[in-house]
């Protein structure tokens, strides 16, 4: 009985000894290869700019169509005040390609907006400051990329200015509350599906 109990203990001891020896061996020598990474920042080729209705009067008292653009024109925050039924916000912001080449755009909804059942919230990107056609139609209520892979991203030509409209529908028999959608405007010189950003 006593001999049977000692076998596992012996095996564990041997394994531990081997592990210690091996770890000591791997930690004992290091080789250093030089790698140089040069970073040369450039001005953002794609920028947000205000639309013709940015910061204009919105529904409800002294509300305005809040459009806040980051200091480098690379971030955008919209504050909208829709009401029951159909709401259309036209030309609240614009996307400008300041470069001499085209870029491929994908819009990614990371955090969808929460609105009552039957609601619609779409971010519509038109390929012109006025008029034009819908280039990208983003559903703000779903986590997804637009265009949805395998569809290719949409090219914004060099020097082009695109328009951002929003369409919000809130059903009448509902009780909506404040919400927001977190989105990313992703652009690349290549027309590939953008990867996930590492945490």
């Amino acid at each position: 009985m006593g001999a049977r109990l000692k076998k596992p203990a012996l095996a564990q001891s041997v394994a531990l000894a081997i592990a210690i020896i091996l770890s000591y061996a791997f930690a004992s020598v290091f080789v250093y290869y030089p790698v140089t990474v040069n970073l040369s920042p450039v001005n953002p080729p794609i920028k947000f700019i205000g639309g013709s209705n940015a910061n204009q009067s919105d529904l409800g008292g002294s509300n305005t169509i809040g459009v806040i653009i980051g200091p480098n024109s690379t971030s955008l925050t919209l504050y909208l005040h829709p009401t029951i039924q159909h709401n259309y916000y036209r030309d609240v912001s614009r996307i400008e390609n300041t470069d001499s080449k085209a870029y491929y755009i994908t819009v990614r909804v990371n955090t969808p907006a929460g609105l009552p059942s039957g609601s619609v919230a779409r971010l519509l990107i038109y390929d012109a400051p006025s008029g034009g056609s819908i280039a990208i139609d983003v559903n703000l209520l779903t986590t997804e990329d637009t265009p949805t892979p395998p569809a290719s991203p949409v090219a914004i030509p060099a020097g082009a200015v695109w328009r951002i409209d929003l369409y919000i529908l809130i059903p009448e028999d509902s009780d909506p509350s404040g919400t927001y959608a977190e989105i990313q405007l992703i652009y690349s010189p290549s027309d590939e599906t953008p990867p996930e950003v590492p945490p």
Partner: protein
Amino acid sequence: MKWYRVKKPFFISSLLLLILSSILLTPVFSSVFTYNPLVASLQPVPPPIVLQDPSIPGVSVSLGSERASASITVSLPYSYSLVISQDVIYYTTFDSGLPTNWVDPDPTCWGGSTTAWVRGSITCNANSTYEVAYYNTPIVSNTSTFYVGAYVRSNNLGGGRYVGITLYDRATGNYYIAAIGNGNRLNILRCVDGSCDLKAFATGLGLQPNT
């Protein structure tokens, strides 16, 4: 047999595949993506403009819970039907005066005979050429101005003579005439401010005595 002799073809093909793959994959791995954040904040507000029910009789309005929608139903209670209870087309009806319940602005208009003109050139409520009498109760129920009346100019359907009916607006004195006469013609006239305009006509018609 040396190992490299056996593996040489495999080695070369693998090397070529590796080079080819690296060429093909180079653009993929050279991609660069930039992520610009965009936040859309939605703060719903009550509708600043709401619909109301004006409470108009005959109009049913169903408002939504937020008064941002309305279903409107308009009921039309009036059915327009023309019922002529008096045989006013036959010209002899008026030869001996107005039928019961018929009135005329000038009672002397309608004292004609059975053989001659109905008071000849009488002028009742129209111009000297056309004479109109009307029934005392409006036939079209939603207006107080339209009457079905009798138009009689002559008991002779010869040239320049007519019998028929009229839609007469007592308020304006304007009227429509549908009359047969003037050489067996059916004429439809529109008379405004005493001036009549022939709108349509047909020929070869006639009348039968009301027996």
